[in-house]
């Protein structure tokens, strides 16, 4: 099967709507078909990967832990809008330490998250075959 470049745009936070968890489900499906997958987190989407989420008090599943599994599915391109982080008083240090093992570099653990400007993000999006919005 031909490989296409997919990017998933995540623009909403985790629990207020169903978009975030649905996006993650579809990301994992694309990974199962061995596609080239990138994720972008912009606007309130950056809250999806904030460290220290605890959903016990609202009786919902804390699916943020699933992001740690993405590296094992060869999903290691997670782009975060620097402008969206800054607007929300957040920095890269507030995000989950998501990593993958680089098979081309003796399986060294490397960070999956890259904080990028919106200009860079638009360039990354223009290089994709498919953009899916959530």
């Amino acid at each position, binding site marked *: 099967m031909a490989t296409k470049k997919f990017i998933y745009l995540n623009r909403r936070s985790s629990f*207020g709507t169903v978009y975030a968890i649905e996006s993650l489900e579809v990301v994992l499906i694309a990974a199962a078909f061995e596609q080239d997958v990138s994720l972008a987190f912009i*606007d*309130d989407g950056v*809250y999806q990967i904030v460290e220290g989420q605890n959903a016990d008090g609202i009786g919902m599943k804390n699916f943020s832990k699933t992001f740690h599994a993405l590296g094992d599915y060869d999903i290691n391109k997670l782009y975060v809008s620097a402008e969206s982080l800054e607007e929300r*008083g957040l920095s890269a240090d507030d995000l989950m330490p998501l990593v993958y093992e680089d098979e081309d570099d003796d399986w060294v653990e490397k960070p999956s998250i890259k904080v990028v400007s919106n200009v860079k993000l638009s360039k990354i999006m223009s290089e994709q075959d498919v953009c899916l919005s959530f």
Partner: protein
Amino acid sequence: MLHTVNKSSFERNSLKSCLNTIDDTSVILLIEDGVISAAKNTNASMIADLAAQGRVYALQGDVEARGISSKLADNIKLVDYAGFVDLVVEHGTAVSWV
């Protein structure tokens, strides 16, 4: 009156609409994605004055779920679900800015 806001101020204008029409004795309770407005961010100035008057509450479970417990703006009062009920009882008519 008690005003509840459940949308992020970065995504919808419901907090802004609420603030435009709120009177001097009403309080605001931020719930669900509304608690994003309780964090220290570029929208925090929207509710800073009301919070300084002790009139802004946020639902603790929703704050914790979004990982922003350590990033709350000044003077935000946290309540649990029982506290939510107390606010409804205390302030009479509730308005939900959905």
